[in-house]
């Protein structure tokens, strides 16, 4: 019988912080990098919203 369950609770919350933190951090860094890169190559000073993007000729 296991009497000390605290390590298991801490482990679960630790896993939550690690996994969610990792996902959030990578999402944020990627978003910033993508914005910067697009701003650098975008012609004129249009908003870097990625409009007009699309695969050509994928009509069905």
């Amino acid at each position, binding site marked *: *019988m*296991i*009497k000390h369950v605290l390590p298991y609770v801490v482990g679960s919350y630790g896993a939550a912080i690690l996994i969610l933190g990792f996902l959030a951090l990578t999402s944020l860094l990627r978003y910033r990098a993508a914005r910067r890169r697009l701003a650098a190559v975008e012609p004129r000073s249009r908003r870097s919203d990625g409009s007009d993007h699309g695969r050509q000729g994928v009509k*069905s």
Partner: protein
Amino acid sequence: MMSRKQRRLWLVIACGIGVSSATALMLVAFRSSLSFFLSPNEVLVKHPSPGMVFRLGGVVQADTVVMGTRDNKPYTTFRITDGQASIPVVYTGILPGLFRQGQGVVTIGAMTKGDREFVADTVLAKHGASYMPADVEQALRKAGKWNPKFGPAPNAATWDDKSPRTIEADNNG
């Protein structure tokens, strides 16, 4: 004349029906091996041969738990019931924290010769779906609405939003 989109949609629907019925058939075919354990009633019907290892699950019957020591090892005998049938179980070893009377358990082991008893080498506790603070459990007990040793918690509507004091005061409800 169907457009390509329409044709693709029907194709997807047809494949979906195919895949789901194939899965359903497979699940029905493997039904017995997908069940994690057998209930006492199923054991009586199926008669697993002595020595064949399987899992037996159910509720620890109230007032059947006997603990002792044999060869310096703790052993426990109790009966597992599903409300219809009950089977005596012998287990040597340390029980999990949630083990108590009225608790759902799953045990791994085999029947002895002559179907007399089930010798378990592992006992796992099966937790119920209800979560309740200790004071609520005490209040239910005092109100005479629930004794954990006789099975799972009463209908959640009678306790899930009432204060312990209300539950206790509500004695004849």
